[in-house]
């Protein structure tokens, strides 16, 4: 039953190839018309496709840690911010920062200010008054801003002696030269309650490891200074972002210190030009190598010139077809179309090689073309489909990078195949008529004849060495690690990435961080739940597992603690007239009473129970210079409050899994994110995609091979080099210090499709024992060797890109393809020889 089905399939493919041969040879105008018919809609589709640059959009972000990470960038606005890092000697840094900050503040884009706000120092004299206003408010609300542990300090200040002492200190401050600054604080807080509150505020606002003796965002070693700027428009507006970056480049030109720029989205624009340059140079270099190889082997200009046309057609139609399904395509996915340069050339090599060989043996042009298209073309068809199938199987992945890679390369392979079928025959007929070759000289054999002889002669030895090699590489492959760090996939020379790394190295409190999001519609409830997360974090900090943690709960008491504080204050102040005592103390100290009226009213209401205190506290804090603390820790988005706690840790001493389990028990439904969690989510997503794609791609390849070959030997011949090549690839990755990552792990699947072609072609032509087997091996082997070299040229260009993701794919594929080709050309003939007793030449 299955045999009949496969026979039917084979017959259909043969009929299809015969039709292609007839149309391409006899109706070139129809080919031209059909090409035009496809190109027009593809052109429209490509023109309307938007290209993405944001690295985060390459991965599934509908849920989990990555979703929360991206949401938090949006909620807090930090995804919009531009970070400028100035490097140099301390003496030069501050004047340069002053000058550059002034330039940024004055920067214009389209006639308007480029930035809404430029923050370049921790202390702004203009914010003294609103700061004093907030501190004054906080000093009247101990139930919100003091912990029970600080109650004793407050009580001491409310004793007659404490009041005297506080007012004596206030008088001393007023008499001194800082009195002008202190006045605003003293009038609002004559008892100095701020001394109990300020440490909490300072702790919560300290998000970076800065030199606390400097008013700038200066690293402790004094060699790095950060300026933070908020662009006037969202930087996702690429036209604005490009102009902004151009203006920034002008502003930083000629600075006496090195100035680099980073930002979650702005980085895309900064790196855009280098990314484009990188991709273009890749494409051009690999195209030059591929064309050079083809011309060097076949010495014929027209077929060589046809190759870029076929590749362009394949890539363009793939992009156009993908554009029909996708509203946007990521620039990294687009870069993968460079693979079509290598893969798309293979079909021209096999078909032209067969055509040339037949002509060399005296066949007429049309007959040579018929054999090339329908016989070799059958192998090419199966090979192309086995290559395309695993790529297309990647479209089941929920990882956008893999989906787009699979779709673009899979379609590109198929379109290149058909472009070869339809374009090459008319061109060859034209070339034979206008520029006929006087003699069909033998094509270079690249030493494949002696190689065949050697493989046949030493088949046992080669088989044993092959087996040992596979065992050795398999052993090495088991030690292959996984690289979960997304940064390693980004451009290595990216200014934004390097700048971000500098900030992390010099200013981060710890190398790693974790964010907890407690969400809900009622602020009090959210704060109450957040307090439970804070308590857990504090326990881990005390155990030495966390370096630090920050939360709004460090500043504003949760409702439960507010009640506790109110109760304690009521008890402590029962029967006391604290306001009256303070008034009398002020009078004794020679103070005017009137300016202190609000402070006196605040003291009188210390023990009053006031509802919804937290909401007012958040409002007051947001209106103060400490609003950054609120923005970092509390967001109201779409009517939902999100309380964000930030945990800093060094590494393995933090038992993250245990912490998350406890957190989930304590606060079911709470969300968490962090670099490690995002990496784990992506790793799990890729693993899932890998499993399904391997299964689907493997089944498709196997079915295609079963359909193509009637014998098990043919299927073995196709799959053995792939298996050995895949093992070699993984083993070589270990030997060269590489790791599997989100992207190159998929190469294993694509090797399955690409690599099976080599064994297929060798077995297709040289699998049967008989006269001319050596020549058939040379012909198929030459095409396989050239295919491998052109594929390596295509992937090789990726290996040398600056993008870690593409580079790792490039190297992994090159190892896999090179190894598969060698196993096909050396080990496979030896194994085939063991099976039968092939004669040499």
């Amino acid at each position, binding site marked *: 039953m299955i045999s009949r089905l496969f026979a039917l399939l084979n017959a259909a493919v043969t009929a299809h190839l015969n039709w292609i041969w007839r149309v391409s040879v006899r109706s070139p105008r129809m080919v031209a018309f059909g090409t035009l018919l496809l190109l027009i809609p593809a052109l429209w589709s490509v023109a309307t496709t938007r290209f993405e640059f944001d690295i985060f959009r390459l991965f599934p972000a509908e849920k989990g840690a990555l979703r929360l990470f991206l949401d938090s960038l949006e909620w807090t606005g930090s995804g919009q911010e531009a970070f400028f890092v100035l490097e140099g000697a301390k003496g030069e840094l501050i004047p340069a920062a002053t000058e550059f900050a002034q330039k940024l503040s004055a920067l214009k884009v389209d006639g308007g200010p480029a930035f809404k706000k430029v923050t370049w120092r921790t*202390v702004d004299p203009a914010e003294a008054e609103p700061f004093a206003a907030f501190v004054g408010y906080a000093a009247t609300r101990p139930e919100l801003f003091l912990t029970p542990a600080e109650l004793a300090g407050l009580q001491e200040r409310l004793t007659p002696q404490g009041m005297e002492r506080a007012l004596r200190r206030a008088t001393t401050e007023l008499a001194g030269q*800082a009195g002008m600054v202190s006045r605003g604080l003293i009038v609002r807080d004559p008892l100095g309650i701020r001394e109990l509150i300020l440490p909490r505020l300072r702790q919560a606002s300290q998000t970076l490891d800065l030199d606390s003796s400097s008013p700038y965002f200066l690293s402790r070693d004094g060699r790095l200074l950060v300026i933070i700027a908020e662009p006037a428009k969202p930087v996702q507006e690429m036209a604005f972002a490009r102009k902004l970056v151009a203006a920034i480049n002008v502003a930083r030109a000629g600075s006496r210190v090195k100035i680099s720029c980073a930002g979650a989205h702005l980085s895309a624009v900064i790196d855009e030009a280098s990314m484009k340059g990188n991709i273009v140079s890749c494409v051009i270099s690999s195209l030059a190598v591929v064309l050079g190889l083809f011309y060097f082997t076949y010495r014929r200009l027209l077929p060589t010139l046809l190759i870029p046309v076929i590749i362009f057609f394949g890539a363009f139609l793939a992009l156009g077809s993908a554009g029909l399904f996708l509203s946007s395509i990521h620039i990294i996915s687009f870069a993968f179309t460079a693979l079509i340069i290598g893969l798309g050339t293979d079909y021209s090599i096999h078909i032209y090689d067969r055509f040339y060989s037949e002509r060399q043996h005296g066949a007429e042009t049309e007959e040579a073309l018929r054999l090339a298209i329908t016989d070799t073309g059958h192998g090419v068809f199966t090979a192309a489909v086995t290559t395309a199938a695993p790529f297309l199987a990647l479209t089941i992945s929920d990882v956008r990078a893999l989906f787009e890679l699979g779709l673009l390369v899979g379609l590109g392979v198929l379109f290149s195949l058909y472009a070869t079928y339809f374009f090459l025959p008319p061109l060859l007929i034209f070339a034979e008529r206008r520029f006929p070759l006087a003699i069909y000289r033998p094509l270079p054999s690249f030493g494949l004849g002696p190689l065949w002889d050697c493989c046949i002669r030493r088949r046992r030895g080669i088989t044993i060495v092959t087996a040992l090699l596979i065992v050795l590489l398999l052993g090495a492959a088991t030690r292959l690690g996984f690289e979960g760090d997304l940064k390693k996939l980004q451009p290595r020379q990216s200014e934004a990435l390097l700048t971000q790394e500098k900030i992390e190295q010099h200013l981060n409190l710890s190398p790693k961080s974790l964010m907890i999001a407690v969400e809900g519609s009622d602020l009090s409830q959210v704060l109450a739940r957040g307090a439970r997360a804070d308590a857990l974090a504090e326990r881990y900090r005390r155990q030495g597992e966390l370096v630090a943690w920050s939360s709004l709960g460090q500043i504003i008491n949760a409702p439960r603690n507010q009640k506790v504080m109110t109760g304690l204050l009521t008890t402590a102040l029962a029967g006391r007239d604290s306001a009256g005592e303070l008034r009398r103390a002020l009078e004794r100290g020679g*103070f005017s009473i009137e300016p202190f009226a609000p402070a006196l009213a605040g003291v009188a209401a210390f023990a009053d129970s006031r509802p919804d205190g937290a909401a007012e506290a958040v409002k007051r804090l947001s209106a103060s210079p400490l609003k950054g603390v609120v923005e970092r820790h509390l967001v109201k988005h779409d009517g939902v409050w999100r309380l964000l706690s930030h945990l800093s840790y060094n590494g393995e001493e933090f038992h993250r899994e245990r912490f998350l389990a406890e957190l989930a028990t304590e606060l079911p439904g709470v969300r968490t994110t962090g670099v490690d969690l995002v990496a784990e989510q992506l790793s799990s997503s890729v693993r899932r995609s890998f499993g399904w794609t391997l299964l689907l791609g493997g089944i498709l390849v196997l079915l295609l091979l079963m359909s193509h070959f009637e014998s098990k030997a043919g299927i073995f011949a196709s799959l053995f080099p792939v298996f050995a090549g895949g093992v070699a690839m993984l083993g070589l990755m270990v030997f060269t210090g590489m790791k599997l990552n989100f992207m190159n792990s998929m190469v294993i699947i694509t090797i399955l499709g690409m690599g099976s072609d080599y064994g297929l072609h060798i077995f297709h032509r040289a699998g049967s024992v008989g006269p001319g087997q050596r020549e058939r091996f040379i012909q198929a082997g030459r095409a396989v060797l050239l295919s491998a070299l052109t594929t390596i040229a295509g992937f090789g260009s990726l290996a040398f890109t600056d993008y870690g993701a593409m580079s790792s794919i490039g190297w992994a594929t090159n190892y896999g393809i090179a190894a598969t080709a060698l196993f096909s050309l050396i080990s496979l003939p030896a194994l085939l020889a063991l099976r039968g007793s092939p004669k040499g030449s």
Partner: protein
Amino acid sequence: MIRTHSFSVPPCLRGSATVVLLLSLFGVATMAAAEPLTPVEGLELLRRGFAGMTDFTAEITQEKQLSLMKKKLTSTGRVRFRRPGSFFMEIFAPYSSRLLLEKSDLTIFYPAEKSRQKIPLPAEEGLGRWFTYLDKPITTLPEGVQLQAERHGEICTLRIAPQGKQGVRELTLLFLDDGRIKRVIIEEQNGDRNSITFRNMKKNVGLTDKEFRLE
């Protein structure tokens, strides 16, 4: 006649504690018949007086009339200055405090409580920039404040009114041709007034680091 001119003080002069520090360097003298000066002439006189001065010490008497207090706060103390940017000021009991400005690091020490407050100032608010400004002959005036200058006998008076509605409303500086400052009067927008009188001002006495220690 008093001439006025619009100019901008360096940011170091704009309403912060540093303003007080800078102008605490200066004192006052008796009044005589007024002779008008241009703002440039007034500032140039001040600059020339400071030329060649490497350090000085002086005793001070400070009188503060604050809106928060019913009584006037009168205190005595001393000041020390050394180029390029060291300034020390001590107020004696009953309002004991010591203040040290080194470049742009401001530290205040309260001996009674043995407590310190460290306030890092932006670089442009240190003394260095102010003296760099006074190092070169003054031919043009910055923007942002109103300035009046006049001479009464041997005493020159500079009145500087920064623009803006917060902080200092007017600074009055009285000094001699040789750079000795007699009095500084600081009036704030909120009505507070501080008058610092300098006595026994001695120039180039060779102050060392130990004279600039808080404890």
